[in-house]
């Protein structure tokens, strides 16, 4: 065990970092798209069905197939990491989008009515009422998306994007369980840490109603 870590420690560290980088880039992108889009859909409700439906479809495409399908796309196909980030963003988008939409829609209509009656502008209503009340639901979406992303990012190694999946694929190819575990354990730990950390924040954001 120790000798294995001595021999591979540096590489595990590097790949963990790569894994984190892929996941975090994709998450930032997904939040950057999903949150405003989710908010927009609460204002333009007739688009909510089709847009969330589309995100749903993206989610159902098997990850390996999605990576493969994106490979021939110009610009995207040129860099494995770029492609991986875009694909991961696609997976992370649905939970964020769906929870943002659902979180804001579930705000008690009495409260939005009062917000109107107090003379709040649309922006004030969003920032002072809707987002704070929906925050824990939105963060629950971010949490789900992050855990999914950490998992799916291991597959990104199949197209040469790096990350902890590289150790897993190499281990499978050479029938080396140690190598498989060297990839799988840090990946699982990353997912668990992200889940626990975001869970903690989420609980803090819950608004007590009664």
């Amino acid at each position, binding site marked *: 065990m120790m000798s294995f870590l001595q021999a591979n420690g540096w590489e595990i560290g590097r790949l963990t970092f790569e894994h984190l980088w892929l996941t975090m880039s994709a998450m930032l992108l997904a939040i950057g798209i999903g949150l405003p889009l989710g908010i927009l859909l609460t204002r333009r409700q007739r688009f909510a069905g089709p847009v969330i439906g589309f995100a749903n479809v993206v989610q159902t495409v098997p990850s390996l197939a999605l990576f493969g399908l994106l490979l021939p796309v110009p610009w995207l196909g040129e860099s494995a990491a770029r492609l991986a980030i875009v694909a991961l963003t696609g997976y992370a988008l649905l939970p964020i989008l769906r929870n943002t939409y659902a979180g804001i829609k579930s705000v008690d209509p009495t409260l939005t009515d009062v917000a109107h009656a107090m*003379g709040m502008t649309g922006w004030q209503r969003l920032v002072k009422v809707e987002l704070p009340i929906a925050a824990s639901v939105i963060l629950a979406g971010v949490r789900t998306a992050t855990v999914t992303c950490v998992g799916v990012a291991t597959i990104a190694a199949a197209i040469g994007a790096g990350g902890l999946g590289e150790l897993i694929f190499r281990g499978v190819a050479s029938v080396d369980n140690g190598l498989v575990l060297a990839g799988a354990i840090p990946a699982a730990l990353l997912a668990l840490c992200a889940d626990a950390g975001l869970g903690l924040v989420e609980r803090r954001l819950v608004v007590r109603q009664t």
Partner: protein
Amino acid sequence: MTKGDVEFAKVSCAFAGGQVLLHEISLKLAGGTTTALLGRSGAGKTTLLRMVNGLVRPTSGCVLVDGVDVGSADVVELRRGIGYVIQETGLFPHMTVERNTGLSLELAGRSRSEIRARVTESLSLVGLDAAEFRERYPWQLSGGQRQRVGLARALASEPKALLMDEPFGALDPLTRAEMQAMLKNLLNRVGKTVVLVTHDLNEALYLADRMVFLDQGEVVADLGADKVSGSENAYVRDYVSAVHHGLIS
């Protein structure tokens, strides 16, 4: 000086399907008076009330507040000058009593110290000690206390008019009576134009100067509170006898 005159000029409201909610209502409510709107559920009371701050738009006719057409007024400014109190209180659950109460001032960009002073004043108007309640959240309040905070919030921006939609409808009779007494006392001191929607005839008689009965979107009676008991109007008589289960005629 604005004094909170409210006028409904041939106001009608209909759904897109053609169902008529209100039919050519014309009423002038003088500044500083309290008018109760009574009638069955679905008679159009709440709709009429919500037209005053532009939450509902008339399909024809217009509503004037101090001579200005609500339809063409700056709706944000208009609403900030009109307090709104509802049965469910609508307190924001993520805000403390202080923030809830001072929210309209916060929206208007007033300074923190000014907001703090006004909040203390408004809370004391409704009988709450600011030092004790300031930091509490709505879930830490009883139903009556919540309703008091809701009223304090509506008063904080010193509105010229108060719209109250069944403000005490969800309270037990004892708390309700306390709240009614507090409100009456408060209105005597601050003088606002109040539009009060209620089912409760006794509440209306106790608080209002004028009673307007609505039925199926039309005004069926419009009389002073002191004229209700001797009224010959069939609708009013029915209403009164319904309240007293026919025991008093």
